[in-house]
């Protein structure tokens, strides 16, 4: 790793200690085994039940709009700053632009992440930008750029959907004109079982393909969508893994149903913000 002159550097190479631990023996297949038998998930949730969400806006006093979200253990904070001119662009563009940055804190995942943005974070920033671009009325902000920064403090699964939902709330609080309220959900698919809002263990389990002959169905993967509430439109759709068409379609229904479940919560948070905005 090249020496970073702008930070204090530790030893050249260091290895996470989990590698030297006795393998916990709980491979993904065994974990799936227990889960499948119990018919319930490790934290007692149904397969299609979303974790408890805590959503608060105005978390960052310095930002124009900000939101802090906790989905189960996953903690994400998003802040939105008021529009500034698009840097290094001279021609007059009629549509505004969004600049999104999605970052995991170095301590937020099991394996330590670097300070610089790696490829996965760049991909997530790109997906988040796509989701929000179709929700924000860009023609209202000609030639301006809105900066949106998301920081994941604790990644316990579906961090990207938490960030997108929180960004939607932060944008509304920042007074940025938007077409609709945006909510986003992740589902993990393994052997045809759909786990809504998977935590980090379940996310790992769904990325792995089971080899043992007991499991013939080779559907496995991760599906993230974000949806506009009243327009019933999907503004972002991302899937990886190895999924057949029918499973993908049924996954889609489950997801749009769960998006509707989250919307009232986002609305309550926003209305609380507007009402005490009126009172003060």
């Amino acid at each position: 790793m090249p020496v970073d002159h702008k930070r204090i550097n530790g030893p050249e190479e260091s290895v996470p200690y989990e590698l030297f631990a006795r393998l916990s023996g709980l491979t993904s297949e065994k974990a799936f085994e227990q889960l499948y038998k119990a018919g319930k998930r490790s934290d007692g949730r149904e397969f299609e039940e979303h974790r408890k969400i805590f959503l608060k806006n105005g978390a960052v006093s310095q930002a124009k709009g900000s939101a802090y979200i906790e989905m189960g253990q996953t903690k994400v904070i998003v802040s939105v700053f008021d529009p500034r001119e698009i840097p290094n662009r001279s021609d007059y563009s009629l549509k505004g632009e969004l600049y999104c940055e999605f970052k995991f804190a170095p301590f937020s995942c099991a394996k330590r992440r670097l300070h610089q943005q790696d490829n996965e974070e760049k991909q997530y920033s790109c997906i988040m930008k796509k989701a929000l671009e179709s929700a924000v009325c860009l023609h209202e902000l000609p030639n301006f750029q809105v900066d949106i920064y998301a920081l994941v403090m604790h990644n316990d699964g579906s961090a990207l959907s938490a960030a997108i939902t929180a960004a939607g709330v932060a944008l509304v609080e920042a007074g940025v004109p938007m077409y609709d309220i945006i909510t986003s959900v992740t589902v993990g698919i393994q052997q045809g079982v759909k786990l809504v809002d998977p935590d980090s263990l379940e996310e790992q389990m769904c990325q792995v393909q089971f080899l043992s002959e007991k499991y013939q169905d080779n559907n496995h993967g991760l599906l993230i969508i974000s949806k506009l509430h009243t327009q019933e439109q999907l503004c972002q759709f991302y899937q990886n893994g190895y999924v057949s068409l029918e499973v993908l379609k049924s996954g889609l229904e489950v997801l749009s149903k769960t998006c509707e479940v989250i919307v009232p919560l986002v609305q309550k948070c926003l209305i609380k913000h507007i009402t005490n905005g009126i009172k003060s």
Partner: protein
Amino acid sequence: MAEQYKSLHPAKYYRDHLKHDIRPDGRELSDFRPVVINVGSIKTADGSSIVKIGNTTVVCGIKAEISRPKADAATKGFLVPNVELSPVCSSKFKPGPPSDQAQVLTQIIADIVGNSQCINLEELCIFPDKIAWCLYADLICIDYDGSLIDACALALISCLKVVSLPEVSYDPSLDKQQVNLEKRTPINVNSVFVSTTFAIFDDKLILADPTVEEENLCTGTLTIVTCNDELCYVHKPGGSPLVDEQMSDCIEKCMNRSNSIKKLIKTAILENI
């Protein structure tokens, strides 16, 4: 309308308030903002803490990794503190490499940890010259509203107090190490440092625990870090000169504040267990 006046003449706006010894947010000159400490909320880190001083919020997470000690310091482990002013906390900071202010803060926090000798690096060494612990302490500022050194120092010390490392057995002949995840032992922290920052306004008024507007308008800052009823850091980077009495009453205020903060840390840690 007051807001418009404040944005056009911030200095005059503040002077009008300070004439009656009141600050715009209603605090007395030497009042401190409420402090909230929460430890151990991030499970993926070996130790974590979130500190809020007024609006300023800093999250500290410590991840332990195994590494090889340096040749010249064969019996010493590593403690690598880094302060990150993330673009989340204020529109002043852009994504990319750390700004000068972030680097200065990193150096100050590293000095404070070094001076206070709160962690004995020898204890972090598992087997001399072969393997040692390397604690990456990452402090991320979530909300930048002034006196950031205090928030970072408090976040780091409360995080260090809750760090627990798994037990490692090293077999020199096979050069193999075995980690036992179940048995986790906390590291012992020899001293607790508490930092307090003062802002000097118009060369005479001393404001305790300044907000970001006050920091921008003040003509100098003074940061004092106490450590077990001794001092381990007195940092005054230029700015308007201070007379000796002002200096000593700042030190005096700083001592009794550190007692109250130490109690706060104890209660936060008790809640966590």
